[in-house]
């Protein structure tokens, strides 16, 4: 549909996990790294305060783990990405190398920001998520495939039923997630709506 917007039917790659519920966007990218006017270079600051001690020694956070450095599928738990609306959070993950996120649930603004970058946020039940996180830990070379169209996540012999928000699925599969182009086409209807608003 829009020029140059790829469809995202499925994402395949090795995995990385970040465990825990309510992981907020301040954790994903601390505010002090947002004193910038572009998103370039944010990748290295993903989960910064979880990855380094005060004396700069590395923690055992998965984003430091050498086994996961080429991972592109992130597996998380409940209410991931809550808090601040900062798009810097998914931008940092994308620039670190994440192309898809599987979780128990996502905060709304975060999921919307991911969609704007073409990153699927698909959900699955807690047991399936925890089992996948264990598999990644045991066998980091496992290829995980997130099939947005079929709403499944598969790895090895296992296929999990996943859920993808209907509009997200259509947008990604049909390659219409760049909403600027979509909406600019409706100038006449925009004018009409505005003309009817009493406060303008």
């Amino acid at each position: 549909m829009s020029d140059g917007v790829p469809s995202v039917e499925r994402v395949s790659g090795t995995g990385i996990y970040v465990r825990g519920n309510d992981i907020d966007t301040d954790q994903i990218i601390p505010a002090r790294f947002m004193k910038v006017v572009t998103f370039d270079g944010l990748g290295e600051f993903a989960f910064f305060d979880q990855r380094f001690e005060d004396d700069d020694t590395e923690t055992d956070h998965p984003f430091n783990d050498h086994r996961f450095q080429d991972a592109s599928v992130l597996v998380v738990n409940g209410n991931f990405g809550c808090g601040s609306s900062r798009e810097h959070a998914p931008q940092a993950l994308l620039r670190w190398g994440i192309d898809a996120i599987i979780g128990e649930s996502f905060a709304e603004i975060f999921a919307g920001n991911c969609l704007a970058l073409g990153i699927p946020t698909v959900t699955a039940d807690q047991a399936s998520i925890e089992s996948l996180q264990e598999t990644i830990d045991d066998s980091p070379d496992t290829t995980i495939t997130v099939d947005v169209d079929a709403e499944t996540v598969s790895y090895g012999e296992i296929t999990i039923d996943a859920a993808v928000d209907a509009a997200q699925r259509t947008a990604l599969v049909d390659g219409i997630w760049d909403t600027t182009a979509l909406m600019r086409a409706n100038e006449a209807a925009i004018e009409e709506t505005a003309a009817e608003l009493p406060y303008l």
Partner: protein
Amino acid sequence: MSERTLYDNVWDRHHVTTLPNGQDQLFVGLHLIHEVTSPQAFGMLRERDIEVARPELTHATVDHIVPTADQSRPLSDDAAEEMMSELERNVRASGIQLDDPTSGNQGIVHVIGPEQGLTQPGMTIVCGDSHTSTHGAFGALAFGIGTSQIRDVLATQTIAMEKQKVRKIEVTGELGPHVGAKDVILTIIRELGTDGGVGYVYEYAGEAIEALDMEGRMSICNMSIEGGARAGYVNPDETTYEWLRETEAFANTPDEFEALKPYWESIRSDDDAVYDDVVEIDGSAIEPAVTWGTTPGQVVHINEPIPDPADLPPEKRETARAAQEHMRVEPGETMAGYEIDVAFLGSCTNARLSDLRTAAQIVDGHTVAPGVRAMVVPGSQRVKAAAEREGLDERFEAAGFEWREAGCSMCLGMNEDQLSGDQASASSSNRNFVGRQGSPDGRTVLMGPRMVAAAAITGEITDVRTLPEVSVA
């Protein structure tokens, strides 16, 4: 038509079309921007050679990175100066009004919109900031967006969204003495969870909500997002209209006010409106509330024991254990007596004039406890000026508080106002996330402005009702 909510009404009035991806395209009545989340959006527009469609409907301020001590230019922090300059370049090139610190109108974006009368009932309002939900206090549909969506709004004055469900939260009864809006919203988030509002818009109703002033309603709507709800609102009423009448939007144009009032009345939820969910909370049972953990849902009333993680639902246990370790609190204890290093009275949740007034009443006749750094950061330059006209600055300073310039300040640690090391802070802000106030080891306890004042005086978390000079009659 009947059985409709304010959300239905405002949505339909702004509905442009349904997009091929199934989302609705909504017209945006007011777009607010600030220096942190907008520069990349302007950059995206430049890359595509697109101009700002309706600059007159976007309003800019600078709040996150501005210093609250010396605001002279260039700012001493080079990164902050660059962000400020970038915003200035962008608004100048596109014809957007900017309220900078030389204007006398600068302040936190969610304080200046309402105080200038930009925020009105029945509008759609967006901003690249999750606390945009604040503006729902006026009966607007207001929500936070990401930077790519800011690009959309700048380019088209519209946004792509899916319609959510509506949960009515009815707070019944009368709030007790020294119990305020912040105690109500912290209690709501505890009851419904930090993700309870995902997929919902919250409608706040009931006697306790209707009795609140606009500042109180803003504090409540502000923290909708901490409960997972992207937007929250209160139906407009006489309290709302009284506020609007005083703003420059209508002070000299009563005809315009009268012309718009029928629209504001028309978008109110019907008495028989149908909700996807209804929750009732007994307002009379709410007591001063504080957080004990590292999410805004980890809340106790001041006399209640901190919960044992083992007694919590399984999915909350691990988070609770980690939070208690970080905060260094023990199950079974109350938060009363928890020692603090910093008292922060500020943020888009609680830095409006009435917040400062109620805190000043607590402070009168007391001094800040030894070793505590207490700071007041007014929400806007106008709040600051109004407070100074009635002498609040002198009362705070006499007690040993710092009286600072307007900005987001220590709510999120993007300027020099930050916790250091493992300092503990009694904070009137909205997020107690690990690291939120600038130090990864910092400990934040959220509470209302009166409780911040009480903690500043005693040096520890204190039930404001037990201070000897405070009358609870």
